[in-house]
């Protein structure tokens, strides 16, 4: 078997409408299956929409935010969501909602809003960085 490597994955695509986020998810599954580690997945640009708890596809379709959440919990890696990219796209956690005087929020656990510094940290930790558009 090859050397165990640490992967960081950047997701730039929405969970629905384009395939990139699904490809990223399948790539993460394969990475773990191959015995490598995932140090974290960073969601940026349209990718932040993966963190919505309101995504509700029909029953014959996959719910990608659910899939991400389960995989991250099972393998204990963080799902970091860029806060500034999120706010302008309508992804808000409970705390931000309060500060912005919004009556609702939609960030799904265990996704967390974080700054681009977190991406820098993942990048520093990782042996390989992979991006999905």
């Amino acid at each position: 078997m090859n050397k165990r490597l640490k992967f960081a994955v950047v997701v730039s695509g929405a969970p629905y409408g384009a395939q990139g986020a699904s490809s990223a998810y399948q790539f993460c599954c394969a990475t773990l299956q191959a015995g490598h580690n995932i140090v974290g997945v960073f969601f940026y640009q349209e990718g932040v929409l993966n963190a919505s708890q309101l995504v509700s596809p029909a029953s014959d379709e996959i719910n990608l935010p659910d899939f991400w959440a389960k995989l991250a919990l099972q393998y204990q890696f963080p799902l970091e969501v860029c806060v500034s990219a999120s706010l302008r796209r309508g992804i808000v956690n409970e705390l931000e909602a309060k500060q912005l005087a919004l009556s609702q929020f939609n960030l799904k656990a265990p996704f967390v809003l974080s700054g681009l510094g977190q991406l820098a940290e993942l990048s520093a930790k990782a042996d390989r960085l992979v991006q999905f558009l």
Partner: protein
Amino acid sequence: MSILHTVNSSPFQTLALQQCLAILGEQDSLLLIEDGVVACQAKHADFLALSELAKQGQLMVLEADLQARGISARIGKSCSYLQFVELVAGHKSQMAW
């Protein structure tokens, strides 16, 4: 150690493949994913250049994406998600197009 380029769009829709081929280094590899996989089935402007790359063993195609679209590759090595992971592991960096 070199770059693994991934192209996810069709050569009939975007110029990503063409621009990728223009700066692809001698040691680099190219993996076609998502809509990008049609580049190894249909005759487009850069099919010849792509065939050359395939002859050098530097062209891969994600099998799951070929299957999704009901097409088969005429050039390039077919590859699973697991092999995709090992391609990333075997290159220094990845560049998404």
